[in-house]
């Protein structure tokens, strides 16, 4: 990574413990200005704690953290003033209208008297909720609520947006709509850190992904490069009864290939010129993810 590129987020050796549990264990993380970085990892890998560290809601025990050039936790307030946060769990004011929710955050983000009205209109337009401005939040659909949650984080035109599992629990249609929204944000030059466990989401939106496991970054890079480095260009899927799959695994390991179970098949990876029989497909980020974070559930 070019050392001279300005960074929206820079973490070095960050450690965060909760009692005897180490949630983040020496994390290095860079988000270059104007890029979208996907933070991938299984449940318990430390993604949510990392997000909390970045918003100043958790203080690191060790290491350095800076956001938009401000050192955390000391200057976290300055960093927060120029960042937007989309939390994983909806925390909108449900008895208020769409517009009132945005107005509240225009105040919390200290927009001036004259800036507030246009900022709220802009946010309504981004979320495509202008015709719902007077609807109470508890009357909105799940997808609309999530759009409002994102719009609320953008009301002050932040330089950095932190998205914590932005599409979790939503229909595929709604998810695609949100992807378009995030993609537009990125094309406008906003820096984005997005934690997700939908691998497709990271593959589509992220310029670079960081795969976390046990509180550390175990792989960093553009999705395509990580796939080539860790899984190879192609994968071969072999289907069969469980006993057959175990045999296939043993043979593959003997030949120096990597494997992963997909439930109904075994995927053979890192083919290196081997051409085993089976269904060929391009390797994907999910292969890398499972190879690096392990098959067991953490």
């Amino acid at each position, binding site marked *: 990574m070019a050392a001279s590129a300005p960074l929206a987020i820079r973490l070095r050796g960050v450690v965060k413990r909760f009692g005897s549990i180490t949630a983040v264990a020496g994390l290095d993380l860079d988000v270059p200005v104007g890029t979208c970085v996907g933070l991938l990892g299984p449940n318990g890998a430390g993604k949510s704690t990392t997000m909390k560290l970045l918003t100043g*809601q958790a203080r690191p025990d060790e290491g350095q953290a800076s956001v938009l*050039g401000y050192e955390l936790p000391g200057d976290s*307030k*300055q960093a927060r003033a120029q960042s937007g946060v989309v939390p994983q769990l909806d925390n909108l004011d449900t008895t208020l209208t769409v517009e009132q929710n945005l107005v509240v955050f225009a105040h*919390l983000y200290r927009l001036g008297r004259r800036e507030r009205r246009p900022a709220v209109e802009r946010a309504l337009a981004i979320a495509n909720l202008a015709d719902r401005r007077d609807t109470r939040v508890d009357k909105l659909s799940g997808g609309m609520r999530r759009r409002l949650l994102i719009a609320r984080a953008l009301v002050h035109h932040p330089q950095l947006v932190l998205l914590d599992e932005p599409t979790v629990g939503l229909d595929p249609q709604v998810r695609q709509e949100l992807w378009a929204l995030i993609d537009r944000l990125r094309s406008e030059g906003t820096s984005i850190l997005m934690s997700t466990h939908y691998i497709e989401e990271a593959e589509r939106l992220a310029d670079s992904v960081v795969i976390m496991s046990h509180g550390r970054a175990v792989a960093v890079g553009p999705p395509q490069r990580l796939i080539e480095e860790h899984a190879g260009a192609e994968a071969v899927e072999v289907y069969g009864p469980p006993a057959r799959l175990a045999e296939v695994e043993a043979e593959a390991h003997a030949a120096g290939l990597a494997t992963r179970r997909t439930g109904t098949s075994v995927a053979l990876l890192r083919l290196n010129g081997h051409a085993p029989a089976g269904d060929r497909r391009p390797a994907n980020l999910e292969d890398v993810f499972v190879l690096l974070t392990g098959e067991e559930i953490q």
Partner: protein
Amino acid sequence: MTTAAPRAARLRRLERPAIAGVLVREIINFSSFWRSTTFSATVEPTIYLLAFGFGFGSLVSEVAGYEYVEFVGTGTVATAVLFSSAFPGMFSTFIKYKFQRTYDAILAAPVDVEELVTAEALWIGVRAGTYGCAPLLVALAFGLDPSWGMLLVPFFGFLAGFGWAAFGILIAATATSIENFNYVISAALTPLFLIAGTFFPIDGLPGWAQTLAQLNPLYHLVELVRHAAFGFEGAADLVNLGVVTGFGLLMWRLAAWRMEKRLIE
């Protein structure tokens, strides 16, 4: 090399825009539930006033040199202030940070815990100061003579309401579940409410209870309000004001400290 943004002026503690932002949120939210809150905050103490005023009032016509309805009418101002500050301080705060995760949203903006707690206590204090006037207005309707000192009652109510709101926030920040509030209500609020000189003068109580009343900020609020209606007593009221103010400052600092521990990991 990591500087991605021009450095803005360093943000300080207890900034006005942060406190104003939290207040705006509260005021807009209040517009959606003010009817029920106002109803209970004004009707409840009024019922106390009428029940005690006419119930006891038929047995005793005068207490401590005042007509009983006037004695209770001024005393229940403190009840109204307590009910409309300590309870929202406890329950709304707990619900906002635990169930609605509102505080996560606010703290992601440039607002610190101290500012959040301060704004919440200020807003509840303003409401308590306003609602505290309800029993006084009822008493006026039943024949209490107006006096200039009464104009200070909303201010006294605000000051005490701020302290009780901060007390409530302190409890909310310490409690692990909403059921824990029962201990506080039964062991602290109910006794303090009864030995505040609201319904009967404290001179008739045993010595230890009188000492306890002297330490009870609610008693000092009752005294302030009564003297605002019937005539201030100089040094004694400065002490009363000092206790109410000191209680507010102490609770404010404790609430900010505990909430910070609770919300920032």
